[in-house]
């Protein structure tokens, strides 16, 4: 039994049923037992602000160094050094769900790819998976392997960006010296335990090279994005927005030379992973040593969801009927973790537990739903994506009512988060990873055997952390580079085997069904974690298309029971450890570290003030956070 709040129980065969004693199935009246902190009411906050000069409204609009348009409002008690209220706002409507309605389903690959300037490849693949399920289309093994190889390398673009361009500067000398000079002084003298791998004698030297624009680690990350892109296009032909991702596989020609060219790039990530892991281990442990309260920065319950990624070509058959089997055969295991405990690894249960709410978002609610069950007869909520309708309704911002373009996805009516780190956690805890020479799950950790390249072979171990916070999100993201590299290595070897055995087909022909209703779901992942596309076809055209991205999950506003979204919870739990002499000099670095540790990817709109002119740019890119 993995559901605590939804009225679903399992029979002896593991099939889900609505509980007979459920008074009102899927009613919104009963408040589920939320695991997150509670916030003050707006009236209480107003009263505090009125009588206390240390209570401050802190608005980050936009939050900088994130992809796209995220705004965050917090009320901070600068004397008590805590956050009293928090609201996360996706500030732009993108509406891919609306754009997709009535279209030829093949358009989904190319249109949804535009949802993100970083993650175009993952949206294209996820759309293809949804179509494959709807059409009953199985790609040949080499097609599956090629997708895995491309997507693993797509994430190798994403992770360095997060670690060194977007979140990394928060730990640079430039910022730490401003916000916590006493921490910088200690860093300058703190011997770095990982110096044999990253080459820095002290944590202070690491921080210097984390400086934005000029730091060596910043510039190196830009270079590594190129290596990752080159490896991707060796297989995929083009990035962003690849045109070789098709239902039933890929449309490129793959040869031994292709694999060799890919490997030349891949091996660079073996050494890069060794270095980056050592850097983020040292940064994390240093902050904990300087002040144990840093363990509370960005802390929230370890509740997270993941649909898994990187299929086993010998197991994936694109069917919903077998998705529990092929899901658990993925290199990254699907799963739901609630309060640190893995409660399921079944894709059907993960899917049945998913709901999206719009009570605090700029949308109208919808009535009922077409699908009371999934294709296997398992119950589905009327708030499930297959039942959802996207009905935008912009109104004025009101913290007590509606304040975001992101809806509020919940799993089993609980606040969860998604990220690259979720892959590590679930895979480590589930111990379902199939036998291979490079990756091992122990139940408490994930071990990575990184081959020798320029640096010696090494075994790294990511351990499920005791506390879940901003530092652990970043640390796990560094280990995710090792995870990706070794998934690539496994798939690279599998691909060579297939070539050797003459199994060179990369795609299966298909025809779009012209009649009837078909449903499909793409269970996949972005660099930042969970990604699903729920699709309904009616007589050959798209009648519903719903995208749930990691940032939709993480940036969500409150739900119908007033449970906060993950950013909001994490910020509310964050102690304000910044050094400042007066409220006017407060920069909010601990809040920003918290938000950026999730690697927000929001819709992009940028307002730039440049001298005497204001340029408003609306650019057609990252819409991960508010695509509905």
């Amino acid at each position, binding site marked *: 039994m993995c559901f605590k709040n939804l009225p679903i129980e399992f029979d002896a065969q593991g099939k889900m049923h609505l509980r007979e004693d459920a008074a009102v199935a899927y009613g919104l009246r009963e408040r589920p037992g939320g695991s997150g902190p509670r916030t003050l009411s707006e009236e209480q906050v107003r009263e505090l602000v009125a009588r206390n000069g240390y209570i401050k409204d802190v608005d980050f609009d936009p939050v*900088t*160094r*994130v*992809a*796209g348009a995220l705004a965050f409002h917090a009320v901070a008690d600068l004397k008590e050094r805590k956050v009293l209220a928090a609201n996360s706002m996706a500030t732009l409507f993108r509406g891919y769900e609306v754009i997709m309605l009535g279209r030829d389903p093949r358009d989904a690959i190319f249109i949804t790819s535009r949802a*993100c*300037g*970083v993650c175009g490849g993952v949206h294209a693949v996820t759309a293809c998976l949804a179509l494959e399920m709807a059409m009953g289309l199985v790609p040949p093994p080499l097609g599956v392997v090629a997708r895995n190889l491309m997507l693993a390398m797509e994430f190798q673009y994403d992770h360095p*960006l997060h670690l060194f*361009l*977007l979140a990394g*500067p928060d730990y640079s000398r430039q910022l730490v010296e401003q916000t916590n000079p006493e921490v910088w002084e200690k860093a300058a003298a703190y011997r770095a335990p990982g110096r044999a791998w990253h080459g820095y004698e002290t944590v202070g030297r690491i921080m210097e090279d984390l400086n*934005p*624009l000029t730091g060596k680690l910043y510039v190196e990350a*830009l*270079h590594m*994005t*190129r290596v990752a*892109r080159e490896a991707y296009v060796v297989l995929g032909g083009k990035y*962003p927005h690849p045109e070789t991702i098709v239902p039933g596989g890929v449309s490129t020609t793959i040869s031994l030379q292709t694999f060799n060219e890919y490997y030349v790039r891949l091996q660079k990530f073996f050494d890069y992973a060794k270095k980056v892991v050592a850097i983020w281990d040292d940064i994390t442990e240093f902050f904990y040593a300087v002040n144990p309260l840093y363990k509370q920065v960005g802390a929230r319950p370890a509740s997270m969801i993941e649909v898994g990624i990187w299929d086993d070509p010998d197991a994936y058959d694109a069917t919903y009927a077998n998705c529990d089997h092929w899901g658990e055969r993925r290199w990254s295991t699907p799963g739901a973790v609630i309060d640190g405990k893995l409660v399921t690894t079944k894709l059907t249960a993960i899917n049945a537990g998913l709901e999206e709410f719009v009570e605090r978002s700029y949308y109208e609610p919808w009535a009922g739903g077409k699908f009371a069950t999934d294709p296997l007869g398992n119950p589905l909520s009327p708030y499930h994506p297959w039942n959802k309708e996207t009905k935008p309704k912009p109104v004025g911002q009101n913290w007590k009512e509606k304040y975001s373009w992101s809806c509020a996805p919940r799993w089993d009516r609980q606040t969860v988060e998604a990220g690259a780190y979720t892959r590590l956690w679930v895979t480590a805890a589930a111990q379902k990873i199939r036998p291979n020479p490079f990756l091992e799950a122990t139940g408490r950790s994930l071990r990575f055997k990184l081959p020798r390249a320029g640096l010696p072979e090494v075994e790294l171990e990511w351990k499920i952390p005791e506390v879940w916070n901003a530092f652990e999100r970043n640390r796990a993201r560094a280990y995710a580079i090792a995870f990706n590299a070794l998934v690539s290595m496994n798939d690279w070897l599998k691909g060579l085997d297939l070539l050797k055995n003459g199994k060179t087909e990369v795609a299966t022909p298909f025809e779009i069904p012209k009649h009837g209703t078909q449903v499909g779901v793409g269970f996949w992942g972005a660099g930042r974690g969970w990604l699903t596309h729920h699709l309904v076809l009616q007589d050959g055209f798209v009648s519903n298309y719903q995208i749930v991205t990691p940032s939709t999950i993480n940036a969500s506003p409150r739900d119908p029971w007033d449970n906060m979204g993950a950013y909001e919870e994490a910020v509310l739990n964050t102690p304000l450890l910044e050094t400042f002499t007066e409220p006017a000099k407060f920069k909010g670095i601990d809040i920003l570290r918290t938000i950026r540790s999730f690697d927000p*990817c929001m819709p*992009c709109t*940028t307002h*730039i003030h*440049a*001298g005497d*002119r*204001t*340029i*408003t*740019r609306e*650019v*057609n*890119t*990252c819409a991960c956070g508010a695509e509905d």
Partner: protein
Amino acid sequence: MRTLIAGVGYSNLSDLSVGPLVAEQLGREEWPADVEVDDLSYGPIAVVHRFAEAEPPYRRLVLVGAVDRGRQGPDIRCYRWDGVLPPPEEIQARVAEAVTGVIDLDNLLIVTGHFGVLPPEVFVVEVRPRATEFGMQTSPAVTALLAEVRRLVRGIAEGAPGELGCCVGGAGGRALAE
């Protein structure tokens, strides 16, 4: 003198796609051996890598794109970029935009300028867009300007830009089409 003519912009955004469109048109024309035509709409960081590795280095760059400056102005603005960069915080923000998918003429100049990879001579031919929504065609007003844009670009690429009346400084640039 090794010269690169390049368009910058998103595809299929009506007038905002003038850069790629003009680059495609110019690519079909005859050019001297030392003049290349390309589309640089693939991200400023990748462009940084390209310029950094160009051998021999480019000496002149002519960028074509549409920029909505949010006010009335000349239809075509042609200027030599002065290379003045904004403060580091804004450069940092532009790099963050660049790596997360923003394709934009200003971004390209700032990011490549910051990393010091631009050719010594950088010229910009900038079109004022009228239609900025999704669309595969430019507006009639901008369509009527395309021949003049191509003529200006050719003049800069092949000739002495000063003689063509290109003026220095973007914001204060003299309009050539007036």
